[in-house]
């Protein structure tokens, strides 16, 4: 008889590993299947996020930000340094150490919580059976009362720019560049493209970003996108819009000629490395047996309802492999919800309050709806905006770029969106998330006491500005 679990999770990314830990905490006998192996063949937990996504990118962004600050912004403080250099190999190996610590940490958490790791490729069969094929080819079949599919996503490849070792790279390759390229090309001005471009621009690369769309960061609030475009441009990121890559050519095995079209016609660009960051697609290859009963939607995502149930009772899917934003915390919260549902609770997730961050400098972060979305929906809104240039703490920190923008419903005063450009927008946005989960009005935030001096005061002032009551800024004249 095959071994049986209450829950088998396929995939140990931030969706799957969190679901597994939560399920185990709730007393369910839980296993998690993972196919990722390191160069020694050992199973690696953590998925895209820990290995080639959120964490390594942020480690490099942090190191390069500090480098850039040291090289350019120290003088104003009176800090004198000579000859600031980046040892790129050391920077990358620090990143590797952090990744290793964190993925090892998940292994430890699985042990502490009693989650069984099943190494190999997982496939959902009919009747909630899961087949796990180990590296050596042996397949084992397990029974489960519940299965959670958390197989994540993989980068989209485009025919004009096929991946080429050391020259044309996806996110995994980009994170292991170990020498500053003189010229770097990036295809795609989305979150990943801008983060990767920022890393190398800070170290001195001449970075060109090609974006096929004619708008910049169209998913962001228009004021955020405008400010970001201005500031990133100043940093030397050359962002070309309406620029569609039509082909690439490797020259002498060491340069890439990129052909693209823009408003002016056919263009060429020669770079030392090219990063392709045009998006990600759900990873479902080999995941589902023909008779598993689980369906994909028209875009290739595993089809689920708002509670992450597939059509097959007891089979759920979460994270990047299902609809919704491709974000680690969205995957994790879906994992918690599904584990709770399996344990018999009526869990639900609030998809309206999922924060988004882009870790450029300054950072961009938002939660809720953008001004243009709300206007398109015909919602009458009030907008309050407060610039960090008027914040004492931001001045003390020499980080005065950006603003906080709060959008409230004109009639009910309820906060509908919080949009931040600023040095630590990533951490400030949690204030917007908490407030919105409590259905905060702008007035609620107006009446709270924010510590001085903090950049968080800009959240307070932006809320006040919604009603033309900001203190540290001359308000618009009342209409």
């Amino acid at each position, binding site marked *: 008889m095959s071994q049986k679990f209450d829950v088998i999770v396929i995939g140990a990314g931030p969706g799957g590993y969190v679901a597994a830990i939560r399920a185990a905490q709730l007393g369910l006998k839980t296993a998690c299947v993972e196919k990722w192996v390191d160069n020694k063949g050992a199973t690696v937990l953590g998925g895209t996020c820990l290995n080639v996504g959120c964490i390594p990118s942020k480690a490099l962004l942090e190191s390069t930000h500090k480098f850039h600050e040291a090289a350019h912004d120290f003088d104003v403080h009176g800090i004198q340094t000579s000859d600031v250099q980046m040892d790129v190999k050391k920077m990358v190996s620090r990143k590797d150490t952090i990744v290793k610590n964190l993925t090892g940490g998940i292994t430890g958490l699985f042990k502490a919580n009693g989650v069984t790791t099943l190494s190999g490729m997982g496939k959902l069969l009919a009747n909630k059976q899961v087949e796990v094929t180990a590296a050596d080819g042996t397949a084992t079949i397990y029974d489960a009362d519940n299965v959670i599919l958390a197989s994540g996503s993989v980068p989209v490849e485009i025919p004009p720019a096929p991946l080429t070792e050391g020259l044309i790279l996806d996110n995994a390759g980009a994170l292991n560049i170990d020498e500053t390229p003189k010229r770097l090309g990036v295809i795609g001005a989305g979150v990943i493209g801008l983060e990767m471009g920022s890393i190398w621009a800070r170290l001195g690369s001449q970075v060109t970003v090609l974006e096929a769309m004619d708008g910049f960061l169209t998913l962001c609030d228009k004021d955020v996108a405008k400010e970001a475009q201005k500031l990133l441009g100043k940093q030397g990121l050359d962002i070309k819009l309406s620029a569609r890559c039509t082909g690439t050519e490797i020259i002498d095995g060491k340069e890439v000629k990129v052909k693209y079209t823009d408003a002016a016609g056919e263009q060429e660009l020669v770079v030392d490395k090219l990063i392709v960051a045009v998006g990600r697609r759900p990873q479902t290859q080999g995941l589902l047996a023909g008779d598993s009963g689980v369906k994909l939607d028209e875009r290739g995502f595993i089809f689920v309802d708002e509670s992450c149930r597939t059509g097959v009772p007891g089979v759920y899917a979460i994270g990047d492999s299902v609809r919704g934003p491709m974000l680690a915390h969205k995957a994790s919260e879906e994992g918690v919800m599904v584990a709770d549902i399996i344990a018999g609770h*009526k869990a639900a997730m609030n998809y*309206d309050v999922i924060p988004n961050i882009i870790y450029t400098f300054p950072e961009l972060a938002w939660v809720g709806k953008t001004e243009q979305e709300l206007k398109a929906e015909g919602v009458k809104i009030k907008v309050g905006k407060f610039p960090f240039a008027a914040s004492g703490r931001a001045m003390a920190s020499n980080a005065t770029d950006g603003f906080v923008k709060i959008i409230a419903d004109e009639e009910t005063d309820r906060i509908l969106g919080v949009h931040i450009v600023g040095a630590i927008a990533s951490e400030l946005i949690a204030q917007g998330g908490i407030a919105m989960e409590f259905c905060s009005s702008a007035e609620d935030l107006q009446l709270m006491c924010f510590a001085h001096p903090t950049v968080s005061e800009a959240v307070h002032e932006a809320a006040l500005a919604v009603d033309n009551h900001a203190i540290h800024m001359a308000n618009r004249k009342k209409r």
Partner: protein
Amino acid sequence: NSATDSFKGKAMASPAVRRIAREFDIDIRQVPGSGKNGRIFKEDILRFQRSAEQAA
């Protein structure tokens, strides 16, 4: 303009209140809130649920 009038759409309640309402099939509108303008806190809905249990 009152901060906590019930807004259009979703109930004006915090995540834990919504969770408990779902779990125990409570109509949030029946729960007396002790907060400003009747805002409902977790402790309010827990109290409501306990007294409903005792009544049953």
